């Protein structure tokens, strides 16, 4: 009502609606333009080279990329990745729980483990396990300082595959331990306190309250570790284990087609990494939604609507106050 009075004969010139639209000249990002042109040039040179340099020998790449030996190697690489990563996660969880234990010996033992396995190169560890029979020719199961139940030759027992799994998993466990510990430590202490106050045991608290919440924090770095693991398995080529890289190496050692076969291996690594990245994305999304837990999309929209409503109610309350 007040508005109308103001718009009356008092204002002599009508408001120019055009003047309210901003017609400003945007900042020119010359640096970015130059960089863009430069990158485009580089890309063109690379594509031209990939397509026209005959030494890439794409025909041979095509020949080998789905050949039996390469696919066998790929299968071994995938098995190593999955098994070693899975065992690594298990070891990591156990170590993390040990590190957070109030028992000093357990906590310190886990610390020493992590210190050792993070402090030495994985390549060295793999070669070490491979040659373990030099240290312990016989491996026995029994009671320390007591009777022996079973005994075997280390060389027969520890096959290259066992060495690969052992080396990769033990090493991964050290890294996963830190990731899991970070996840657990990030959970508010009040959560475990209220669980305790309700009479839940230490294990129940961990399993039902702490770990489910920690998972959300642990998932993204674990995805990264898995991708890393896929590529790290190529180190087992030093054990003469026929994984993807070693298979490619044995072929080019015979045919001297080094570059095409390295391309074959790289393309597979790239492909699998892309699939894992994709999977990681969905896993992360699943678990961040797991935070809003089992709530359907429509319910989430409803949640937003309700907050908006409450804010508008506040606005109305404010108006009422102003009127007063």
């Amino acid at each position, binding site marked *: 009502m007040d508005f109308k009075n103001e718009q009356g004969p008092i204002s002599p010139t009508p408001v120019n609606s055009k003047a309210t639209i901003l017609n400003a000249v945007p900042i020119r990002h010359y640096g970015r333009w130059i960089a863009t042109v430069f990158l485009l040039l580089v890309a063109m040179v690379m594509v031209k080279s990939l397509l026209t340099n005959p030494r890439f020998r794409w025909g041979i790449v095509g020949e080998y990329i789905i050949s039996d030996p390469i696919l066998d190697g790929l299968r071994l690489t995938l098995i190593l990745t999955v098994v070693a990563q899975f065992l690594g996660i298990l070891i990591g969880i156990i170590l993390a729980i040990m590190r957070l234990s109030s028992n000093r010996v357990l906590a310190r033992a886990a610390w020493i483990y992590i210190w050792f396995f993070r402090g030495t190169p994985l390549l060295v560890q793999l070669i070490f396990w491979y040659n373990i029979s030099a240290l312990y020719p016989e491996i026995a199961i029994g009671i320390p300082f007591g009777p022996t139940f079973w005994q075997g030759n280390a060389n027969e027992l520890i096959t290259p595959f066992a060495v690969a799994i052992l080396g990769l998993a033990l090493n991964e466990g050290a890294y996963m331990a830190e990731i899991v510990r970070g996840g657990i430590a990030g959970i*508010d202490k*009040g*959560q475990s*306190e*209220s*669980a*305790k*106050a*309700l*009479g*839940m*045991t*230490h294990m*129940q608290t961990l399993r*039902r*309250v702490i770990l*489910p*919440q920690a998972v959300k924090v642990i998932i993204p770095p674990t995805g990264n570790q898995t991708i890393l693991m896929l590529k790290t398995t190529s180190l087992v080529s030093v054990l003469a284990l026929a994984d993807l890289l070693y298979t490619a190496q044995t072929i080019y050692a015979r045919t001297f087609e080094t570059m095409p076969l390295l391309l074959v291996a790289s393309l597979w690594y790239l492909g699998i990494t892309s699939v894992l990245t994709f999977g990681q994305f969905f896993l992360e999304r699943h678990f961040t939604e*797991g*935070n*809003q*837990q*089992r*709530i359907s999309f429509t319910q989430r929209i409803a*949640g937003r609507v309700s907050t908006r409503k409450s804010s508008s109610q506040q606005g109305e309350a404010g108006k009422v106050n102003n009127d007063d």
Partner: protein
Amino acid sequence: MIEPALRVEGVRKSYGHVEVLKGIDMQVKPGEVACLVGPSGSGKSTFLRCINHLEKINSGRLYVHGELVGYQEKKGRLYELTDREVCQKRAEIGMVFQSFNLFQHMSVLENIIEAPTRVLKISKEEAIIHARELLELVGLSGREDSLPKQLSGGQQQRVAITRALAMRPKLMLFDEPTSALDPELVGEVLAAMQDLANSGMTMIVVTHEMGFARKVADTVAFMDAGLIVESGPPDEVLDNPQQERTKSFFSKVL
């Protein structure tokens, strides 16, 4: 003579060299409401946490319904109870925290039935029926599937009270249950607590809400520097304190 719900004799507690509780004596009869008041840092919360053995005491004796908390006495020697035994005892004592501490990844209903089904091994169906009854009492019917962070602080605290009650406790501990709440939400939580007190629940409440203490408490105990300085019925302690320390505290807060 009826065994008191809580009997405390000369309880002391230290963190390193700092003594926070310097010999607490207290008795609370079944069905009574006791309010612990006093300045922050006086040891109220620590004392409360000793009652359900979240903190271990260094000396003295603490009995809940005639049973020693956290220990077993055999031939004059104390033996620590195992994790499982302590948990059984804790299950009989409900506790409500200042910061609610609802399980963030569980819905309201899941929060409430978790301990009854896992600790008391009650069937899920039965636990859900009981949970719904309790939610109705605190005015939260229909919020079963909400997550804690979708609720207001006052609603969260009422869920926390419900969660504790679902264990059918004999004793309820409240650790500054309204201190983390926006002022306009304090009332709904205090109302729920008052209903609970009227139903005959034994309650020990650490609080700064003197109005609540006056209205609901049977006993008010004023704590300062690790000791109970003065205790008695609310009108005596709050309106006519005898000790200098009590007088100066209430002259500032009332």
